[in-house]
Structure formats: structure tokens, C-alpha cells
């Protein structure tokens, strides 16, 4: 009986491992507002990390898209954290203000976090599930890819 139970647990574990992605590297960063944020404090919620910089042409569109998504899905456990790679925080604050985003903008001027997430091309969107595993990565989105992102996002919220 115990072996059977162990087998069931092992198979559940394997299934879960197969479905999940790698664990999202934890980090703590200061935001433009002066507050510090730590990724691991959002376990239990679906998190989108949006890596961006003021010099990246496609980034503003993604910032605005994720503001819309935050307003739609924010009350069902969806959190957006912008991670800015500019050297000067003022540049991040200016563009975030102009784009009208209401989610935290975290400052990664040392680029330690962007390196750990391999954010070589911007914008980069990383979707993290409620267990802290990376489940999808997206670059700048066209219409078809946006539909894919929405499917991924709704699946993660429903899990």
C-alpha cells in the first residue's frame, strides 16, 4: 500500500515537474518610488516581469499593454513588476510617468537581475506561476503573440 502511495506521489511529482519550468531566480530591488520589492514575496500570485529601458523602441507599447492587463486581471492575483535597465533612475521615472503605468518600476541599473533572467533583447516578458516557476518568456508581441500571451496568462491564473 505504502509503495503504491509512494508511486502515486512520485508520479504526481514528476507530472508537476514536467509541467513547471525552472524556478525564477529571487531578487530584491529598489523601485522608483523608493520602496524595495522582493520577488519571493509574491508566491501565490501570477507575476509578469517586464524588462525594459527608455532607449528600447518597443518597450513603451509593452509597458502600456501590461498596465491594461494589470487593470483587468489585478484583482484575481496577477502582479506586474517592471524591471528597468537604465543607468539613470530619472529616465525610468519619466517614461513610466508618460506611459501612465501604475505598477512598480524596479531599478536594475547594475543589471544583475537582467543577467540572471538572460534579458539580452528588450523588451522581455517573463511569466511566473503561483509556485515561483518560470512558465513563459515573450519578446515584443504582435497580435498573434498577444493572443498566445493571453492564453498563457489565463491558464496560469486558473491553475
Amino acid at each position, binding site marked *: 500500500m505504502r509503495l503504491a502511495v509512494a508511486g502515486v506521489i512520485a508520479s504526481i511529482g514528476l507530472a508537476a515537474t514536467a509541467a513547471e519550468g525552472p524556478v525564477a531566480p529571487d531578487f530584491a530591488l*529598489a523601485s522608483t518610488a523608493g520602496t*524595495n520589492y*522582493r520577488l519571493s514575496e509574491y508566491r501565490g500570485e501570477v507575476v509578469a516581469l517586464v524588462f525594459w529601458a527608455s532607449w528600447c523602441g518597443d518597450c513603451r507599447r509593452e509597458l502600456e499593454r501590461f498596465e491594461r492587463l494589470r487593470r483587468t486581471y489585478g484583482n484575481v492575483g496577477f502582479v506586474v513588476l517592471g524591471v528597468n535597465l537604465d543607468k539613470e533612475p530619472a529616465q525610468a521615472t519619466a517614461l513610466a510617468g508618460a506611459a501612465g503605468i501604475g505598477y512598480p518600476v524596479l531599478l536594475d541599473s547594475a543589471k544583475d537581475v537582467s543577467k540572471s533572467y538572460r534579458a539580452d533583447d528588450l523588451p522581455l516578458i517573463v511569466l511566473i506561476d503561483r509556485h515561483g516557476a518560470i512558465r513563459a518568456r515573450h519578446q515584443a508581441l504582435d497580435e498573434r503573440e498577444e493572443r498566445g500571451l493571453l492564453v498563457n496568462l489565463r491558464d496560469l491564473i486558473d491553475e
Partner: protein
Amino acid sequence: MKSALISVLAAIVVSLPAFAADAADPVTAPEADRSALDGEVQSLRREVVDLNRDLFMLEEDLLFPASTQVAVFVSMDVGTFFALDSVQLKVDDKEVANYLYTEREQDALKRGGVQRLWLGNLKAGDHEVTAFFTGQGPHDRDYKRGTTLKVEKGVGAKYVELKVSDKLTKLQPEFVVRVWE
């Protein structure tokens, strides 16, 4: 005809409990199995948690033996005059930890929580532990303060506590470093 009908109805009524019992059996049996399975799963889960704890302790004993182990803890007493933002820790002028505190962590420290900032190995002898605290001091002014302690590492494990407390006489924060024997 009427008596035949009555006898058929009576037979049906009499046989209903039997049907009900037959129908209940297949339901009760899997439920009993399921609760037994749940019990087994819970017991296995407990064993896994216990094993994980033992392995963690074993790992710590192996990686940080008492003869070289040094741990640095951060605590906060009241914290009215200081909102902790980060702590940078240097041992023998080498940075070993740099920790940013979120609001939740600050709150936990204020409510009496103690955080293990760093756990490492140092050989026996004299060492210098320096901590730099940054945050907001009285009147919301940016505040940075360093504190240094000479630590003599002996044969046993060494525990160092960095404590932020309020100095009411000066209305300023106070940073205290002490060694637990």
C-alpha cells in the same frame, strides 16, 4: 388483481432498503480507501518534511562546522527613529552580504523577528566585522551608519547580532553589535 398489485408494491417497498444498502456499499468502500490513502499521503508528507529538516541540518553541519562557523543576525528594537533600507556586511574588508529590506521584512523585524543575514566560515583568530546600515532616520532624512566589531574566533561557533534600537535621550537610532557566546 388489486391484491396482486398490492403484493407487488409491498415486495418493492420491502426490497428498497436492500437496494439502498447494495447501492451504498460501492460508495462507502472507495471513501474508506480514499481516507486511508489520504492518511498515508499525510504521513509520507510528514516524513518527507522531517527528512528534509534532518538533511538541512546535516548539510549545515558539514558546510559550516562549529570550529569555523560564524553567523550574523539582524534585529530591531522599536525602530521609531529609523526605517531600515539595507545592510551591507563586510568581514575583514570583504563584502559578504548586501541585503535590501522590503516593507514586510521591516515590519517582521519591528515585531521582534530576527534575520540571519550571513552564515559563513572563518578560521580561528581575530576578524573585523563591519556593517553599514542605510535607511531613513529622524525627519525622513537619508541615514547611513557604519559599525565595526573585532571578533575573536575561537573553537566554537560564533554568533554576532546587529541590533538597531532607539536612543530616546538623543531621539536618534542606535546601532549595537554584540557577540553571543
